[in-house]
């Protein structure tokens, strides 16, 4: 994650803004959604220098100018696979053993053939 809190004009940044305040939202929402604003985040090139939280205009990939407050500078992606899932680690071993047993019982008939 970038620790920068200041950007220069031309830097790749992200801004955020509120699209709809709760009062402006659709009327068909569950209460936990209705009470919150609809927010958006969008990335582009900073049109001026600024610090996190400052009002900022960006030029997006389509060339639109979008205003918001500066929420990230050179934002990256940090999603991953994470740790193996203990409830799944046995699956491969179990199924390979099952296949070996099945094939042995079939007299090693070729796998997956049709017919009764």
């Amino acid at each position, binding site marked *: 994650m970038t620790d920068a809190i200041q950007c220069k004009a031309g830097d790749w940044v992200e801004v955020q803004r509120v699209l709809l305040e709760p009062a402006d939202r*659709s009327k068909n929402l569950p209460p936990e959604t209705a009470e919150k604003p609809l927010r958006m985040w969008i990335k582009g090139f900073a049109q001026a220098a600024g610090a996190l939280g400052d009002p900022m205009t960006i030029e997006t990939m389509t060339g639109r100018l979008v205003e918001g407050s500066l929420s990230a500078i050179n934002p990256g992606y940090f999603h991953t696979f994470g740790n193996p899932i203990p409830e799944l680690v046995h699956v491969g071993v179990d199924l390979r053993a099952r296949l070996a047993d099945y094939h042995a019982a079939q007299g090693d008939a070729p796998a997956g053939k049709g017919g009764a």
Partner: protein
Amino acid sequence: MATKFDAIMARRGEIMLAALGMDYSVFEQSPIAFDYEGMMSAHGYSLDDIVGIQTRAGVGHTPLLELKNLTDVVRSMSAPGKGARIFVKDEAANMAGAFKDRRASVSIHVAKEKGYEGVIAATSGNYGAAVSSQAARYGLKCIICQETFDSRHIGQPEIVEKSRICEAFGAEVIQMTVGPELFFHMVELLDQTGYFAASLYSSFGVSGIETLGLEIAEEMTALTGAPPTHCVITHAGGGNTTGTARGLKRAGATDTQIISASVDLSGLHMASDDDFNRKSFTTGHTGFGVPFATWPDRADVPRNAARSLRYIDRYLTVTQGEVFYITEAMSKIEGLERGPAGNTAMTVAVSLARDLPRDATVVVQETEYTGAGKHHWAQLNFAKEMGVEVRSGDPKGNVPGKVIVIPERPEQIQAQDFDVARMRKSYVRNALKNAPEGYAPTAADIAFLAADTNSDAAAVEAILAALKEA
């Protein structure tokens, strides 16, 4: 007082007319009926034309693989004489990693032909990647509106990955918090930019999926001598089911049973900020599958080309834990590591094949790409962080949003039939509800409703009579 939301939505008709490149009003026949086949063929492309468009766009012609080890796992737990052969169409081999490339390729081709400068789509799924990739190839600008985060700015790893891939293809991605107003912002942007609406639900998109059904019919015939006896389709908005089934029929595979498959997410509200990160699936689930099947015209086009009830023979659901188990199994015994949501149909196929004769052939018609975030481990680790319990056991104990139960043995995988008759009834009720109050359906309306629900006039009349009494 009209809100900002209402103000844009009131102008939605005129904005969409300019953005869709097609006037839907010419197909309307009554407050209920419209000319579905007329709408589907209005673009003027033959199936061969679409194959050509897709071939030039690097889309389609994906491998059809027989899954012999998975078939043998099924046979190891089947009664004598049972255990159908299982095949998969490896749609992850498409350029942007999913069957959605087929859908996007036709829309983007049309946008380019009609001279639009760019395209916009509202999607949190693989469709965003597909539209972004095709737009890059055609040199069009691209905006993807995506429901990404809850109000705390936390998103499922699978969706965050889909933001990344769209941006990798040069799209402008608008990441939003939970709510159906995603479509409001899309309409606002269409109005501002004059771009083409690359809707998931246009006839362009759904026609693009027909080639998948065509390839399955042709390739299975070459491999086994006949089209598949069963085709299992991961089902969300209904386009996958509709397009694949239409393609199979157009290829002459009229006897192939169409089985839609969804992950059961009953109990979770799709517009809930609290439930958003507790779904563990971002698509292929009943939260989209049921509402869109029972009222397709809730979509972002005046008439939805995805009308799955026309084609569904059976609708089977499985639990989250069952799909994660099969996703892991596919890697370990078939060497096929693919994204979890696309394996929903695979999970249903395992349950279905067990009860079918050995000479039956079951085609699972898609896979989707996998990678960091878009992976069953990532989704399960995230579920745990969100307070969802993950444990081993009998998947009957799975409770969406609360407990994910990973099966201990493949025997525990048991798909459940969703009542299609009830869905038909619900669809007819919705069709009436959306007509002016007191409107009495004509004989032509009844014939339309029968076609739209794959039933007959007598069945529709019985539903109408029951609704009148209620």
